[in-house]
Structures are given as C-alpha cells and as structure tokens.
C-alpha cells in the first residue's frame, strides 16, 4: 500500500486572485451585452415558419402591434391568451390608445403576426379580418431566418 506523505506543518498558501476576478468580470460583461431584452415579444409556444428570405428589418416598425398565434389558433396578445373571436375588444383598446396618447391614426400602426408554422391559414386570415374591422391596415407576417438550402441540380 502506498503511504501518503502527510505534511505535519500547516502552511498557509496565498494565491493571486486577480486573474480569476478579471475573467469573472469579463464573463459578467459578456452576458450583460448578449442578454436579449426583447424576449417579451417571443413566446416559447410559437415555432415560427422558416424562410431563407427572412432577414431582420433595417429599420424598426414605427408602431408595432405583435399578435402571436399558437398551432391551435389561440391568439397571444399583450400577455393574454384568447380565441380569435375575443380579439376585437383588446384591439379596440389598443386603437384608442394609439389615437389618443400618441396623436397618430390607427393606419400608422403595423400588425405583426407571429403565427406558428402549423397554424391553420384560415385562422390567420380570420385574425387579419378582425384587425381590418378594427381599422388596422398594415400587416406583416413574421418568419424565422433559415440557412440557404442546398442548390439542387436543375
């Protein structure tokens, strides 16, 4: 059996902590900078359809109104889940808020639809119709950027 050499005299070992603290601060700064603050507009329940032409817009939408739709057709708007039929009331509230507070018209607002890839298209169209009834005119359909697919020989 091996014998462990036990040092009888207790030695106090001091080591330099500076590099470790430097690293730690670097990590803190990295995570601070990469933190995504726009998570409020992205629901985990929505898996966006993919498109090779979807590129992040160069300039932000002036008055965005984000409507998210799950695969079952439920709408998520301002943090509340609701069936499309009940969307009219909160949309009217939003329209009134735009027209009074921001001193702009409802036609300046853009409705961004983040629908799941498996949402039935009829329900997306239904939501668009409801928005039109309330007065919204501009619509955008959101998709996730996909890598360019391999070119097939034609």
């Amino acid at each position, binding site marked *: 059996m091996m014998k462990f050499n036990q040092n009888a005299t207790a030695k106090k070992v001091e080591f330099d902590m500076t590099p470790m603290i430097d690293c730690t601060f670097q990590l803190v700064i990295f995570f601070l900078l990469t933190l995504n603050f726009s998570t409020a507009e992205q629901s985990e329940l929505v898996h966006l*359809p993919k498109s090779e032409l979807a590129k992040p817009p160069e300039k932000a939408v002036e008055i965005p109104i984000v409507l998210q739709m799950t695969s079952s057709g439920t709408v998520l708007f301002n943090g509340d889940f609701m069936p499309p039929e009940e969307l009219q009331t909160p949309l009217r509230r939003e329209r009134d808020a735009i027209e009074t507070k921001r001193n702009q018209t409802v036609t300046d607002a853009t409705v961004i639809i983040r629908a799941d*890839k498996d949402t039935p298209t009829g329900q997306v169209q239904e939501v668009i119709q409801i928005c039109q009834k309330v007065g919204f005119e501009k619509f955008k359909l959101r998709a996730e950027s996909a890598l360019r*697919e391999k070119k097939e020989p034609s």
Partner: protein
Amino acid sequence: MKIKTSGGEERIKFDMTPMIDVCFQLIIFFMVSMKLFTPEGDFNIKMPLAAPSPSDQIDDTSPPIPIRLRANDQGRLSKYQIGERPAKMFPPALTEEKCRALFIRDLRAQIRSVVGGAGGPGSVAANTEVELDCDTNLHFQYVIDAITAVSGYLDDRGRIVQLIEKIKFAPPPK
C-alpha cells in the same frame, strides 16, 4: 482642517470572497436567463379593406395572378395551381421537407417565367400582384413558403433579388 496622514505603511488586506460570490451569482443569472436568439424577418402583405377608396385604384394595374393552394386532411400541401396553368400535385408519400423544397422551386420557376427578370421600380414584377387562395386548414408554413418563392430569390452571392412585392390573400369563402 488638517487631514491626518499615517506615516507608517500598512498593508490592508480585505476579504474578496463576498465579491467573488456575487460575481458568480451574476454569471449564473445571466447564463440561465440567456436565450439563444435566432434572427427573424417580416414579409409585407397587402390587405385591401372591404371598401377600397377610388383613389387607391390605379387603372393600368393588371388583375392579380391567383395562386391556389390546396391542403389534405393533415393540413399539408396537396396541390397548387397558378392561374389556369396545369396544377402541380404533391403526393402524401413525400416527406414534408421534400414537399416544401419542391413547391418553392417549382413555384419560383413558374413566377420567374411569368414576370421575367428581377423586380425593381417600373419592372413587370413590381407591377404584378399575386393573390393567395389557401385552404383554411393549410399549415401556415406553406403560406410563408409561397410568399418566399414569389417575393424573391437569393443569387449566387447570397443577395436577395426582389420579385413580386404585392401579395395579398384572397377573401375567405363564406
């Protein structure tokens, strides 16, 4: 007032442990709350209101090209047709990826044969309008695929070449 300065040099040692603890807590917090972010993009669609104003009407615009997308019971694309051209069928035996890739390639080729070259101000593509007529149960992914195929393509350098910009949905059947 006089400020007292101590003449003798004293080495002050302070305990770093709480600071390091806090830093690690911060790191763990950021690591947990970090979400991998995938870039997203938007497609504009033109949705006319129920009663368009006469000023919006431009006389020389040709009627929109109808693209009919039909779905099977599972919501997958089963066939599509541009105008009066022959319809293209997609058998259910195809995998979804294959079906989508075929659909995008075929639709884009047909659209390019209709509008010719690239879009831009004054081009045929810029003045052409497309109307998507989709089955109600069709999965939304195919709509985005159709819009992708119609609105442009990537050239060899990976730049987007714009084709048709005016895309709208056909009014749903009553």
